[in-house]
């Protein structure tokens, strides 16, 4: 491990203020989110971060100077930087830029392509270019299917049918809705990439829907019929007596449509037993007497004892 002072580029006698200034300067230069294309900065940033977190603490700095502690163990837990999500296409709601917004760059690339050719007098036959759009829909629209209106580059609007079971990142093709062709050739196609926002409590794995549902202690011990949300609305579901946290029940056919087979997936409901919010004296008394007679050791069974 290299010397923390040299990591920050300061002398061992540097004042707290100098250390802070050196760190700020390096952080501005090396923060991974400010350098989206540079893979090497992340490690450097972690190092200066670790160096600063030790040297900015007077007590730790004293002990480091005295050789009592070393630089190890100062690194903060690894985390996802914003750039990794932004580059993966997440957080698109923030991105104030797309091909349409960059009209100044792209207009002559696509729209003017034919014009300059026509000026030459001869129009070659050429199929129109394909164009790409993206549409944002919510989780339930993707699960149940929806119609979305999008505006095309030429100002026309089209209604796009999002089929039930559409996956995040899936591309829909609108035949003939791309740019017009030249010399009588056909128009290109429009491709619409679908982005699905995550849901508060549903998650999706292929055509199956997963959901965690809290149940009360009496419901778990005695069994109950409870109301559970599905992508199509609420259904009632039987919780068997003796159900436990982690018990997963299947609601057959309550998932979304598998686009290949056309069959509906299932919904998996994972139960979570929740005790009353406030400790209850009566329940405590009952547990005391019950526990004496019916002790059990779940940790032993799990191999943790």
């Amino acid at each position: 491990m290299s010397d923390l002072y040299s990591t920050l580029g300061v002398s061992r006698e540097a004042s707290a203020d100098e250390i802070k200034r050196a760190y700020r300067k390096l952080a501005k230069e090396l923060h991974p989110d400010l350098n989206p294309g540079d893979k090497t900065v992340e490690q450097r940033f972690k190092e200066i971060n670790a160096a600063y977190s030790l040297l900015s603490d007077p007590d730790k700095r004293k002990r480091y100077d005295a050789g009592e502690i070393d630089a190890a163990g100062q690194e903060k837990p690894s985390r996802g930087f914003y750039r990794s999500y932004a580059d993966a296409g997440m957080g698109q709601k923030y991105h104030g830029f797309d091909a349409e917004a960059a009209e100044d760059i792209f207009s002559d690339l696509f729209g003017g392509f034919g014009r300059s050719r026509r000026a030459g007098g001869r129009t070659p036959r050429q199929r129109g270019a394909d164009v790409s759009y993206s549409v944002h829909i919510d989780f339930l629209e993707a699960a149940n299917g929806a119609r979305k209106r999008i505006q095309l580059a030429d100002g026309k609007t089209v209604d796009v049918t999002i089929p039930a079971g559409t996956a995040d990142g899936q591309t829909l093709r609108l035949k003939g809705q791309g740019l017009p062709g030249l010399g009588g050739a056909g128009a290109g196609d429009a491709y619409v990439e679908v982005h699905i926002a995550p849901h508060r409590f549903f998650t999706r794995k292929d055509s199956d829907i997963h959901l965690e549902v809290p149940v009360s202690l009496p419901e778990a011990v005695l069994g109950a019929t409870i109301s559970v949300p599905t992508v199509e609305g609420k259904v009632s579901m039987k919780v068997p007596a003796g159900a436990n946290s982690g018990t997963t029940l299947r609601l057959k056919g309550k998932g979304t449509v598998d686009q290949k087979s056309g069959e509906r997936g299932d919904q998996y409901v994972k139960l979570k037993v929740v005790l009353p919010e406030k400790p209850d004296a009566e329940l405590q008394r009952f547990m005391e007497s019950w526990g004496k007679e019916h002790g059990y050791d779940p940790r032993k069974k799990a191999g943790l004892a």
Partner: protein
Amino acid sequence: MALLSLVEVITAIREEGIEIQQTEVEGFIQQSWVIPLHEEGGYFFDEADKARIELICELRRDMAINDEAVPVILNLLDQLYGLRRTLGEIREAVRELPPDWRAAFEKRLTESLGE
């Protein structure tokens, strides 16, 4: 991937060693620096929202960027990431071109951008 509530996202950020107050996050939302899902009176954050909050904290605290300048930086960064995305799409489109078109494209780029 499930979404995090306001309290959960604050806890997760603190666990990564970044100190943050609830009022700060609420301020970020009010300024539209962060746009979580807003539903049933609560806010719900995805991973990108969380990483964005961490970035804003580091801009303000580690780099001494003041609150007037934060939106300027975020706006430029958003344009940068949007551009990167568009460039990525152009790269994909170029990959699908016939080989001789690609070669011509590469030649033209090498000429103007250098090595």
